């Protein structure tokens, strides 16, 4: 909702009726400019009070409920002027407009009766009235719906980041805690939905796995073995969980070692050398990753080559030659047998004797005219007569050999001849692949050595600049980096092997199944397994792209805010930690973390990040009004204007109480901003005694731009 107005009656220092203390707001940047003790913070309190029934106790620096703050809430001047026995009310009315242009009026009232000059009888609690504008008339909203209207003015999750005092900014994000940014993103984005889905689906997957196993065990042919496999699967599942935890720990330790190394390297004075070495090390690491990927690709392709490049046939040529000899011998004997069989047939009966016309008649009559015996169709005698019709050489060999294998043996012979040349080239093919693999390994080794040398050079540079302790710390962290990288690699390999073992056991359990397993259990297991993967990868994609958008937006804001003061160079980087958290840091153009940033710069980073989050997916900057009291109180000069400009451009509405622009001449800065209304406020003591709070009131005047 957009806030249209805030009016106050006898609320703290705001003496007088609503009409005397009225602020009207528009879209854009609304400013309430005032010096110290002019009523800015009390105005900020008024926003809080009307919504939350809480008031900031400046003495104790905590928010307290009205019932505990009592008549202190009411203007001292009004209390002084009141007659004994009279009842006084403090009131704040906020009018806000929803996106459907419906106006809501929220009024909180708290009263106290004057018993004597010192004693007051305060109400036990404040009263909230909520009205909705219906065709120009204020109609009360049912009390059950009050909460929902209040939440639409400012939601509870968003409130700390959109309604804050300057001194609170530092506490909104504790950047030393690396989970802070992730937590803020979780609160202010819809990423939590994915996390919840992931939790639900992971639990579902566990249940589905168990249900399927139970269903398999019901129809197993070997109950004892199935039970034993079931126990093994349980143990493997635990082993996987432990391994995953170990991997997370190793990753975190590796990240810590890298961070420490980075911090120590930053202490080297020779910036040019440091940058040169760091760039070289980064380039080498990137090249090593690419080399390792190429090497792995070649290694994993090796077993395919056994079959696709016929490496498997290496050394088989002798046997194949032996087959060729055997085949030739066979072929000669086969043909000889064939020729003999054909010749004997020719000797028995000359070609075309008896004449084909007689042979055809024999077939029709199904009788041999030579011997007079019957030759029924499909009988051996019939086939024999039929053969007389074929030319001599074409007589089927099947009648010569019971099992003619000539075609098959010839196929094997031809195949072995065809592959002869390929087999001759196998050595060269293997050698060339080996040499490529060796080349990659050599390159990786060379780069590893150079990285070690660079580490040595860093150590030397550190030795020149720093104490022995720092050099020793550098060595320790470098050793840790190596150690945890190795542990991580080993654990990853182990996890992979354990996962394969689990698949094998699950397959074995399935092989013991004799009957039909409940199809629903199978489907559920499969669906949950897919679901977990889909949700996990979607969640990571969404989160990563959220982070990337956030980093870009925060940098745009950061550069907008620092445009007028070039004392800060560099950009915000959201660094992904091994734990999956992101930690913000300011880095220079070479990617070095700038550790010398002062508080003022940190405030800027925090504000840029908070604003970026509010502007991101949820478009909170569009739906709620940002209200802040002295947000620039900890900012260095010249950043304030940049901050207001960024606020005016990127937030639909902001209401800021500030002591900036007290000088009328500085207000020309507003000319390019998207401005709402600007008020100037000042405390007034008509009697002239500035110590007499019972004479205090606030004068409000709108500043025309």
């Amino acid at each position, binding site marked *: 909702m957009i806030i249209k107005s805030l009016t106050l009656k006898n609320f703290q220092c705001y003496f007088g009726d609503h009409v005397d203390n009225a602020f009207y707001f528009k879209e854009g940047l609304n400013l309430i400019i005032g010096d110290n003790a002019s009523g800015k913070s009390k105005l900020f309190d008024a926003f809080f009070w009307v919504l939350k029934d809480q008031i900031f106790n400046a003495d104790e620096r905590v928010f307290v409920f009205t019932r505990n703050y009592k008549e202190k809430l009411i203007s001292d001047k009004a209390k002084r002027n009141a007659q004994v026995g009279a009842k006084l009310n403090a009131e704040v009315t906020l009018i806000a407009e929803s996106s459907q242009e419906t106006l809501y009026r929220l009024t909180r009232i708290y009263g106290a009766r004057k018993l004597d000059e010192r004693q007051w009888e305060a109400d036990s609690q404040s009263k909230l009235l909520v009205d909705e504008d219906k065709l120009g008339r204020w109609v009360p909203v049912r009390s059950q719906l009050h909460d929902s209207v209040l939440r639409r003015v400012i939601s509870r999750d968003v409130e700390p980041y959109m309604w804050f005092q300057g001194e609170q900014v530092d506490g909104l994000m504790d950047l030393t805690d690396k989970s802070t940014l992730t937590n803020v993103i979780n609160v202010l984005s819809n990423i939590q939905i994915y996390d919840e889905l992931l939790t639900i689906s992971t639990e579902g997957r566990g249940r589905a796995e168990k249900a399927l196993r139970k269903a398999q065990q019901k129809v197993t042919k070997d109950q004892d073995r199935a039970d034993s496999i079931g126990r093994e699967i349980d143990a493997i599942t635990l082993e996987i969980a432990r391994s995953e935890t170990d991997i997370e720990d190793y990753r975190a330790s590796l990240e810590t070692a890298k961070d420490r190394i980075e911090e120590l390297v930053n202490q080297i004075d020779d910036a040019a050398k440091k940058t040169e070495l760091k760039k070289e090390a980064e380039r080498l690491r990137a090249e090593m990753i690419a080399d390792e990927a190429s090497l792995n690709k070649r290694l994993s392709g090796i*077993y395919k080559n056994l079959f696709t490049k016929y490496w*498997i046939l290496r050394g088989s040529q002798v046997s194949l030659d032996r087959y060729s000899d055997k085949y030739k011998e066979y072929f000669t004997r086969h043909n000889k047998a064939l020729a003999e069989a054909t010749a004997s047939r020719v000797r028995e009966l000359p070609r075309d004797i008896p004449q084909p016309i007689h042979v055809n008649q024999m077939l029709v009559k199904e009788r041999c005219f030579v011997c007079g015996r019957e030759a029924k169709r499909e009988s051996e005698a019939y086939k024999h007569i039929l053969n007389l019709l074929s030319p001599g050489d074409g007589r089927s060999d099947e009648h010569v050999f019971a099992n003619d294998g000539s075609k098959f043996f010839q196929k094997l012979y031809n195949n072995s001849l065809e592959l002869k040349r390929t087999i001759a080239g196998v050595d060269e093919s293997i050698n060339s692949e080996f040499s490529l693999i060796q080349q990659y390994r050599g390159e990786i080794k060379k780069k590893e050595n150079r990285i070690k040398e660079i580490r040595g050079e860093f150590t030397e540079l550190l030795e020149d600049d720093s104490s022995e302790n720092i050099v020793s710390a550098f060595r320790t962290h470098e050793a840790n980096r190596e150690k945890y990288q190795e542990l991580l690699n080993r654990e990853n390999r182990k996890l992979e092997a354990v996962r394969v073992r689990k698949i094998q056991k699950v397959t074995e359990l399935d092989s013991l199944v004799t009957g039909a397993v409940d199809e629903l259990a199978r489907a559920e297991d499969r669906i949950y397994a897919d679901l977990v993967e889909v949700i996990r990868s979607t969640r990571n994609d969404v989160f990563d792209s959220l982070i990337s958008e956030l980093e870009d937006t925060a940098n745009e804001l950061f550069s907008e805010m620092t445009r007028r003061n070039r004392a800060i160079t560099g950009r915000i980087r959201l660094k992904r930690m091994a734990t999956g958290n992101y930690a913000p840091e300011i880095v220079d153009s070479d990617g070095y973390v700038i550790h010398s940033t002062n508080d003022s710069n940190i405030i800027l980073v925090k504000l840029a990040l908070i604003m970026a989050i509010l502007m991101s997916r949820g478009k909170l900057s569009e739906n709620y009004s940002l209200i802040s009291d002295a947000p620039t109180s900890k900012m260095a000069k010249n950043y304030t204007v940049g901050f207001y400009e960024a606020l005016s451009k990127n937030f639909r509405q902001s209401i800021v109480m500030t002591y900036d622009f007290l000088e009328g001449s500085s207000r020309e800065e507003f000319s390019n901003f998207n401005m709402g209304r600007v008020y100037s406020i000042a405390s007034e003591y008509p009697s002239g005694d500035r110590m007499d709070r019972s004479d205090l009131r606030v004068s409000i005047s709108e500043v025309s731009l």
Partner: protein
Amino acid sequence: MYAFFIGLKRAARKAIYPEDRLKTFWEMENWKPRDLVDCLLACAISESNVDMNRLEVLGEAEMGEELSKVRRTIEEYANGGIVYLLGLFEKEPDLVEDEMLFIRLLSEQD
């Protein structure tokens, strides 16, 4: 198939006892790629004492007996190859992690 060719290269031929025999045998016509299977058969025929000409004139039962010489040769070389590999792994368990092992064994000089 790999085990057969390794057995063949190493002349490692090891008989399979009846109790070790697999109850099920994956039909050879399903083996792939075909040209490699043909090579394997050619090698097995050359290394067995099967008489190719005699095969052509035998009756069904006798032919089955003669053909089993080829099948036995395949099994024996494959078995020999596996026994050879197991022996290697027993001696040097770390070889299990050597992704180049199978290629090296093939490419070692005869």
